[in-house]
Each structure stands twice: as structure tokens, then as C-alpha cells.
């Protein structure tokens, strides 16, 4: 039986560029994962529906616009509403240190700020999957 880690890479909010998201998508692919990329300007509802249909193990969100304190917890809330509790959710982007504790309290497992090597993200995913892979 072949086990593959499936990751949804999503860009919630309105910011208009996704270089960071593409870099992480490529790094995860090179680490042997299947990455579903949803493109720019996704609503939390779209992200959660896509995560369910794609049956991913991980949702990785990246945000630059500053709306993370609203959008990340909203995704967690919707996942919970749909009864999805076995997906690892991580965040990245321009996120001030003082916001990180709040995001973690909302259920974001880890927050990766700019400059984090992609290998750290890959390691984190491999070690923290909520389902066995």
C-alpha cells in the first residue's frame, strides 16, 4: 500500500502574489509529497471544501496581507464545523511574533515566518501528521 502525504497549499485573503506559496509547494513536491495548489485569493470556505474533497493530510496557508488573525482561525472554525479533526494546519507569511501564540491557541499547529528554511517545514510536517502516513 502506497502512502503519500497530500498537502493543500492555499493563499487566503486578498494579497496578490504567491511566490512564497510556490516555493513551498515545490519544496514539498521535491520531498515526495503531493501538493494541491489552489491559487490566489481563496476564501476560508473554499479552502476547507478543497481540503475535504482532496482528503489532504495537511493544509498549509500563506498570507502576506495581515489578515491572518481573522482568516487562519476562521479556517480552523470551519474545519471543526465540518467535523474535520485529523488535518494538520500550518501557516506562514508575514506574521508578527506577538500574533503567533493566538494563532496556535486557535489550532494552527505551527507558524513559519519568512526566512524559515523549507526543510524545517518539511520536517515539521513529517513529524506532526495527525493521521499515520
Amino acid at each position, binding site marked *: *500500500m*502506497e*502512502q*503519500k502525504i*497530500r498537502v493543500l497549499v492555499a493563499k487566503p485573503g486578498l494579497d496578490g502574489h504567491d511566490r512564497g506559496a510556490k516555493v513551498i*509547494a*515545490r519544496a*514539498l*513536491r*521535491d*520531498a*515526495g*509529497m*503531493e*501538493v*494541491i*495548489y*489552489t*491559487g490566489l485569493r*481563496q*476564501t476560508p*470556505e*473554499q479552502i476547507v*471544501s*478543497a481540503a*475535504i*474533497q*482532496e*482528503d489532504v493530510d495537511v493544509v498549509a496557508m500563506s498570507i502576506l496581507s495581515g489578515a491572518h488573525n481573522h482568516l487562519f482561525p476562521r479556517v480552523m472554525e470551519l474545519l471543526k464545523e*465540518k*467535523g*474535520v479533526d485529523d488535518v494538520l494546519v500550518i501557516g506562514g507569511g508575514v506574521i508578527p511574533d506577538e500574533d503567533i501564540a493566538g494563532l496556535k491557541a486557535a489550532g494552527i499547529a505551527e507558524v513559519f515566518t519568512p526566512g524559515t528554511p523549507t526543510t524545517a517545514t518539511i520536517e515539521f510536517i513529517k513529524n506532526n501528521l495527525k493521521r499515520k502516513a
Partner: protein
Amino acid sequence: MEQAVLLAGRVREGDPRATARLISMVEREDPSRLEALKLLHAWGGRAHIIGITGPPGSGKSTLTDKLVAELRARNRRVAVAAIDPSSPFTGGAILGDRIRMNRHATDEGVFIRSLATRGHLGGLSRACSETVRVLDAAGYDDIIIETVGVGQSEVDVVRLADTVVLVSVPGLGDDIQAIKAGVMEIGDVFCVNKADKDGTERVVREIRAMLETAVMNGASTRFSELFSALSTLSGAAHESAPDEGDEEKAAKEHFQQGAAHHVAKQGRDHGELQLPPVLATIAETGQGIAELVDAIKAHEAGLAATGLLALRRRQNLSWELGKAAADSILSILEGEERRVELDEQAAAVLAKKRDFYEALAIIRASLASRS
């Protein structure tokens, strides 16, 4: 077992989580999927399976997005299986088709699943046919399969789809070459996308010319099969069968009108030649999409009216069964026990105790006694 019953029940109700879960089990070839698939068996066979294939970057995903919108407007529930290649080096994949379609994610009548080929050649993913079966049982009316960008050998989609849309674009010199080399035979409906670009008319003309040549040479293509079945049918209709089902008659007329319409619209006098539709579209703006859906649906109606739908599905299934049987024999041969036996026979052949064909006969006999 209990779990399988539960899972199958939820798939039947159209629960997207259950559907997604079962597809994952299919993808990783989890043996416990079989119980659920067996339970769902009775529900399959209703969906219209539409294949979208063509060269990389020709706009398959953008077209699929627009097809979904148009089919939804016609009150159909739609599922998409979008396939992208896995990296042969790392086994990873970036599945990017969804980018073009994710606006449908929150529509409860739409289910989109991205699939990686996982080493499978032929333009589909390894578990594509089982995935389609799951989506079918989940009650989607139309299932669109977007293949990976095709070269010349990646045409497995004809084994799975009722209607194959072959997408071309202007400005790809060797695109036409690829089509010439035999991919053309697989199309039921032909679409020249990016019609906003120069050279569209020329590509449309070239495709039509090739189709004409194929028809005149009596080449066996998917569409020539359909047209000859249709003409038999209309011959029979002239002798007027009053007990013919209304629905069937309507479907037939619908298709004939559809085909006539498309031929007429192409503005050419084909004489007696019947050609499949060759449509120009601009997927980005949605231009030509309604006509494309009309052509796809007319094709389905034609298949149904002539009985070709059932015939093709049977042929495809028998091909799939054959392949599954071969795979299972292969896995027996690759087992440790067989390896030893093969090795012994090889030694015997080398030692001139028996010849190659005698050794082969012994292996075949021992396989047969096993199954």
C-alpha cells in the same frame, strides 16, 4: 466490514468527506476499499463520463471550469477528476489543475479531485477507473476526467470515457503532427481552444481535412463507428417503428439535429461525409462553451440511441478485466515461490534437460493448477 457498510452508505448519500476518503483508499490500494466498492457496485453506470484531453497548456483545466459552470446551469451534478503527472524522481507532484476551478469548491453539486499519476503511463492515474466508479456511485450526473497533457501514447482515456473531447490550440506546429500520428482517432468532439489567437481558422480547417481524409479512407475511428450506427438507425426509422420509445426517438433526433447543426455551422459542404463537430472556443471568456456542451450531450444521446454506449462500456470493461487478470497473474509470478520455480526451469533449460517451450508449458500448467 461494518465500516465499509457505513462508508458506502455515506458515499451513496453524496457525502463529500466519505467520497474523498474512499478515493484515497482507492489511490493507496487499501484492500479494505474492496468491501465498500462491492457495496456500491449496484449504483454505478448512470453518469456520463467525459474525457478532456490535449497537449499541455492547451486550456483543459480552464475549459473544464467553464464546462462545470455550464453543466451546473443545466442542473447537473458534476464531478471532476483532474490528473497531473508525479515526478519520476521524488514521487511527489504539484497538482495545479484545481487553480482554474476552485471557485466551484463550495458548490455542493460539484466535487473536484486532483490525482497524481503515481507512475502510471497513459495519461490517467493508476486508480482512475475505480475513482470514477466511486464518483458515479456518489450520484454525480457528469464526471469530467482531465488527463495529463497528451503525447501520442497517452490515450487510456478512451477506455474510460463515453465522450472524449480532444483539445487543440493554434500556434503549436507539432500539435497537428501529434494528431496526425493517431491521436485523432480517439476524439468524439474536437475543440480548438484559444480561438482568440491567430491561426485558429487554419487549425480548424486542418483538423477537418484530416477527419475527412480518415472518413474517406474508411479508417476506423470512434466517430465513424457512431455515424454508421446512426445511419443504420435512421434507415430503420424510415421504415417507421411505431413502438420505438419516445425517449430514444427524441435522443436520436436530438443528436441528428446536433450533428447537422454543427456540420451546417461549419459552413462547408461535406456532401455525404459526416464529420464530428470541430468547435472553436475561448475558455477564458466562456465563448463557445454552450455549443461545446451541446455537442458533448448530443454525442451521448447518439451513443445511447444506437446502443453504442452499452457496447463500448462492455468492451472497456472486458479490457479492464483482462488487464486486472494479467496483473494478478503477474503478481503470482513475482511471488517468491514462483521465482524459485522459474529459476529451476531456467537452470533446466540451460542444462539442456528441456527446451524453452517445454519449460514454459510446465510453468503454465503449474499456474493453471493454482487458480
